[in-house]
C-alpha cells in the first residue's frame, strides 16, 4: 500500500484528531498564556522571614530612629519607631523613601577617579593609597566639610584634619551653630533643645516644626498630643504652610523678621508690671528692647499688627509653660543674634533650662583626641570660609574632604562656594550618591548607604533630652562601597596619622562608654537617654545689644521666603525617585517650579498665574513660574528649596531651579557666623 495524497491527508487528519485527545493543544495554550506574564523585567517577589530592624534616618536635617521592615533580610519598607524618642512612631517623607534610596540610580557604585570630564573606576586599594598620598602631600593644607553634625564619622574626619595640623573643619549651615552662639550670648554653654512635649503654649517664630524643622516626627507627635491636652500652637511666618494649616493660629510675619517680633514681644512683656530688676542684665535689656523695639516699630518691620503683638505677649505671660521656638523658615540662615532674640524671650518668661522650655543639653563627648570640640566645630563658619577662598582672601585647601554634605548645591553664596571647591587642590567626596559635589570631586570614595553601615547620632538639634542612637547595618553593601568611618581610619593609618582607633565600631563604642550607654542594647534598638542637664548661669545678655539688621523695603523688590519641603529632599539628598509622584500640579509646571505670591503682589508686578519669571538677587538668579496664593503676605515671594539639581538622576535633575543661588550670606560681627535668612529679590518676566 503506497502513500498517496488521500492517505497522507487521512494520516494528518488522524494526527490532528488524535491531538485533540492529548494535552498538546490545551496545555500549550495554557502555558503560553502563563509565558506571556513572565517577562524578564517584571519584578519577582522575594519571600522569607519578615522582621523589623532598628535603623537611623539622617536624610533630612534631623536624625532619628526608625524601623525598617525586611523580608529575608532585604529592606522593603521603613516606618516610625514607637520606642524611639525622636520618632515615637512617626516618620518624615525622606525616611519613608529611605528604602527606595538604597537602590537609587544616583548611587555611586564603586570608587571613582576624575578622568577628564568624566570618571574612571578604580579599586578601593588604589583609592585609599591615593588619598593617603594626598594627605601626606597636603600637610596642614587639609579641610573638611560634613553635613552630619550628629554622627561620629564627622568626629573621625575632623580628627584626621586636626591630626594633619589643620583647623579647617566645617559643618554645613544649620541652626545648631547660631543656637549655640545665641546661648553663649546669654551666658549659657551647651547644645540647645526644646521640650516641646511638656510646654503648655508653643509659639513657632518661623519654625516650620510640623513640616521640615527640627525633629519633625517628634514635633508632629507632640502636636498630636497637644490637641487632647489643650496646648495652643501659634505659627508666625510669611506664608501659610503645612504647619500653619493645623496650628491654632497663624500670625503673618515678614520672612526673616521673626526675631524682630521676638524682641517686640520682649519689649511688651518687659514693660509689664513684674519686677525683674534683680535679674542679671535685665535692666539694660529691658531698656534696649523698649526703646528699639516698640510695638509700632515692630509692626512696621514684621507686618504683625500692634494688637496681635500685644495679644501674643499677654498669652505668653498668662500661660503656665510657654515655649518660643525661633528659626528661619528654611531651617537655616538665622544669625546668632536673631536666635538669641528668641532665646531672650524664653529667658524673660523663665523658660530656659526647665521642663517644657528650652533645654540645654551636654555636648557630645569627644572621643577622637585630635578632633575639635563640638562647640568649636559649630563656631567655624563654612559659608564665610568658602567665600573667602573664592575671593582669594584665604588660601584654597590642597585637599578638601566632603562627607554627607553637598556644598556645591546647598550653600548661600552658591557661586562662590562652587568656585572655592573648584579652587581646592584635590577634592574627595565620600558621598553615597552622585550629588553636585561628588560630580565636582577628583575622587569619590562612596560611603555605604544608611542601612549598609554602622552609624550613630548624638542628640540632633532640637532634642528635648540628651539621646544617643546607634544603628547597625541591615544589609550587606548592595554595591562596592565601604563605610566612610572605616575608610577614613584606614587612610589615616596609611598616611601615618593614626587616630587611635582601628575600626569605626571602636569609635562608636568609645562614645557609648563615655556616655555610659550600652552599645549592644542600642544596636538592638534601645537608644540611650540622658537625664542630666548641665547647670547654667544665664543673664540677659552677656553680649552688647544691637538692632537686628533687616533688608530695607524699596518698593521694587520682594521679601524672599525660601521654603523647605522634605518630600523634595533636603540639603543632603535630592528628590527621591518615588517622591516625584508627591509633587503636586500646583508645585511644578512641566519642568518649571512655581513660586508663590498673592494676587495684589502679582498685580503690582504685572504678572499673572503661570507666567515665567526671573528672580534676581545680588547673589544670583532663578527661573520659575508664578502661582497666585492668597496665603502669602504682601510683597513676599515664597520659593521652594530642593529643586534645580544638576547632578543626581533623571528623577531630580533639571527640575525647577536652585533657590540657594539667591541667598547671600553676610558675616555676623560678634560671632563670625553667616546669616542669610533675610533676602530681597526682584521679580521680572522671563
Amino acid at each position, binding site marked *: 500500500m503506497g502513500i498517496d495524497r*488521500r*492517505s497522507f491527508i*487521512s494520516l494528518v487528519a*488522524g494526527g490532528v484528531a488524535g*491531538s485533540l*485527545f492529548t494535552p498538546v493543544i490545551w496545555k500549550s495554550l495554557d502555558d503560553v498564556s502563563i509565558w506571556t506574564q513572565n517577562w524578564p523585567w517584571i519584578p*519577582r517577589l522575594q519571600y522569607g522571614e519578615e522582621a523589623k530592624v532598628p535603623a537611623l534616618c539622617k536624610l533630612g536635617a534631623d536624625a532619628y530612629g526608625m524601623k525598617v521592615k525586611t523580608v529575608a533580610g532585604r529592606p522593603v519598607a521603613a516606618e516610625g519607631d514607637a520606642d524611639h524618642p525622636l520618632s515615637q512612631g512617626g516618620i518624615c517623607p525622606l525616611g519613608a523613601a529611605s528604602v527606595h534610596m538604597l537602590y537609587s540610580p544616583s548611587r555611586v557604585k564603586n570608587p571613582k577617579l576624575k578622568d577628564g570630564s568624566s570618571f574612571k573606576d578604580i579599586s578601593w586599594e588604589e583609592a585609599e593609597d591615593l588619598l593617603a598620598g594626598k594627605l601626606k602631600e597636603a600637610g596642614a593644607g587639609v579641610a573638611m566639610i560634613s553635613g552630619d553634625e550628629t554622627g561620629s564619622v564627622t568626629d573621625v574626619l575632623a580628627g584626621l584634619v586636626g591630626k594633619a595640623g589643620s583647623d579647617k573643619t566645617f559643618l554645613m549651615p544649620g541652626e545648631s551653630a547660631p543656637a549655640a552662639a545665641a546661648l553663649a550670648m546669654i551666658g549659657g554653654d551647651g547644645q540647645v533643645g526644646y521640650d516641646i512635649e511638656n510646654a503648655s503654649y508653643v509659639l513657632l517664630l518661623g519654625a516650620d516644626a510640623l513640616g521640615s524643622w527640627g525633629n519633625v516626627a517628634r514635633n508632629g507627635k507632640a502636636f498630636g498630643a497637644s490637641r487632647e491636652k489643650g496646648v495652643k500652637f501659634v505659627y508666625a511666618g510669611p506664608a501659610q504652610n503645612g504647619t500653619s494649616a493645623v496650628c491654632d493660629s497663624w500670625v503673618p510675619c515678614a520672612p526673616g523678621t521673626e526675631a524682630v517680633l521676638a524682641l517686640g514681644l520682649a519689649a511688651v512683656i518687659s514693660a509689664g508690671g513684674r519686677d525683674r530688676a534683680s535679674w542679671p542684665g535685665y535692666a539694660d535689656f529691658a531698656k534696649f528692647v523698649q526703646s528699639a523695639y516698640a510695638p509700632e516699630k515692630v509692626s512696621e518691620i514684621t507686618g504683625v499688627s500692634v494688637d496681635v503683638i500685644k495679644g501674643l505677649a499677654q498669652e505668653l505671660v498668662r500661660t503656665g509653660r510657654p515655649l518660643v521656638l525661633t528659626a528661619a523658615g528654611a531651617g537655616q540662615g538665622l544669625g546668632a543674634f536673631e536666635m538669641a532674640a528668641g532665646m531672650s524671650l524664653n529667658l524673660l518668661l523663665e523658660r530656659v533650662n526647665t521642663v517644657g522650655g528650652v533645654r540645654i543639653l551636654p555636648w557630645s563627648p569627644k572621643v577622637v583626641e585630635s578632633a575639635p570640640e563640638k562647640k568649636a566645630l559649630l563656631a567655624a563658619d563654612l559659608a564665610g570660609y568658602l567665600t573667602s577662598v573664592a575671593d582669594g582672601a584665604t588660601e584654597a585647601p590642597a585637599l578638601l574632604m566632603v562627607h554627607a554634605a553637598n556644598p556645591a548645591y546647598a550653600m548661600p553664596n552658591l557661586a562662590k562656594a562652587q568656585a572655592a571647591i573648584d579652587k581646592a587642590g584635590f577634592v574627595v567626596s565620600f558621598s553615597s550618591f552622585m550629588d553636585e559635589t561628588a560630580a565636582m570631586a577628583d575622587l569619590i570614595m562612596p560611603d555605604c548607604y544608611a542601612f549598609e553601615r554602622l552609624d550613630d547620632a548624638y542628640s540632633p538639634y532640637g532634642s528635648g533630652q540628651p539621646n544617643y542612637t546607634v544603628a547597625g547595618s541591615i544589609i550587606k553593601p548592595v554595591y562596592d562601597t565601604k563605610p566612610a568611618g572605616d575608610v577614613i581610619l584606614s587612610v589615616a593609618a596609611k598616611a601615618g596619622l593614626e587616630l587611635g582607633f582601628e575600626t569605626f565600631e571602636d569609635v562608636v563604642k568609645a562614645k557609648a562608654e563615655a556616655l555610659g550607654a550600652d552599645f549592644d542594647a542600642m544596636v538592638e534598638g534601645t537608644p540611650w537617654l540622658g537625664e542630666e542637664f548641665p547647670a547654667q548661669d544665664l543673664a540677659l545678655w552677656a553680649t552688647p545689644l544691637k538692632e537686628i539688621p533687616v533688608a530695607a523695603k524699596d518698593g521694587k523688590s520682594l521679601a524672599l521666603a525660601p521654603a523647605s519641603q522634605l518630600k523634595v529632599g533636603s540639603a543632603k539628598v535630592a528628590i527621591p525617585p518615588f517622591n516625584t509622584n508627591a509633587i503636586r500640579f500646583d508645585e511644578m509646571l512641566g519642568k518649571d517650579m512655581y513660586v508663590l505670591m498673592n494676587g495684589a503682589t502679582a498685580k503690582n508686578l504685572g504678572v499673572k498665574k503661570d507666567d515665567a519669571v526671573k528672580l534676581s538677587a545680588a547673589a544670583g538668579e532663578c527661573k520659575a513660574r508664578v502661582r497666585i496664593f492668597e496665603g502669602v503676605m504682601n510683597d513676599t515671594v515664597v520659593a521652594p528649596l530642593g529643586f534645580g539639581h544638576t547632578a543626581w538622576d533623571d528623577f531630580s535633575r533639571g527640575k525647577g531651579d536652585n533657590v540657594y543661588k539667591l541667598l547671600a550670606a553676610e558675616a555676623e560681627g560678634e560671632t563670625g557666623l553667616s546669616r542669610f535668612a533675610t533676602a530681597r529679590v526682584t521679580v521680572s518676566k522671563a
Partner: protein
Amino acid sequence: MAKCKSCVVLPFLIGLVASIVLGWWGFPKVLYSQKTQPIRFDHVVHVEDQAMACEDCHAFREDGSFTGLPTNANCVGCHEDVQGEDPDEARFVTEYVQQEKEVEWLAYQTQPDNVYFSHIAHKELECTSCHPDVAKMKTPPVYHENRLSGYSKDTMKMWQCEECHAKTGASNACFVCHK
C-alpha cells in the same frame, strides 16, 4: 473501492494513535526539562538517623508565615564543618556555608506572585496532600521545569485549589487567594 477505504481509514488510525502516543508520552518530555537539586539532600539521614522533625527545618514563624525551604542559617548549627562522608554534604559546606552563599533549592510547588497561599490556613492537611513525600527519600525527586511557563510541573493549578475549596466548603472568592 475496498482498497480506497483502507487507504483512508488505516492512515487515519495510524495518525490518531501516533498523535495520542506522542501527545501523552513525547510531549511532556519535550515540554519539561529535568533538573536536579543543587545539593542531593538526604532527608532519610536527617529524619531517621538524626531523628529530626519536619518542623526543625520547615516551621511556622511567630507571625504565622511559613519558613518553607531552610536557609544556611538553619544548617550551620551542625554543618559548619563537614560531618560525614557524603560528598554532597562536603560540597554544601565548602561551596555554600563557607562561602556564605545560599543554596538555590528548586521548589516543587512555588505559586506565582499573584497567588497568596497561606500554609497556616492549611495546616490541618497532611503535607503530602500537596508535596512529594520527601521525608522518605534519600535523593530529592527530579524537578521538572515547564519550558514555556517556567514553573514546576508539580505547581498546583487553580482548578485544583478551587476543587478542594469547593469540596471542603472553603470560599472560592477571588480575594481569598488573589489579594
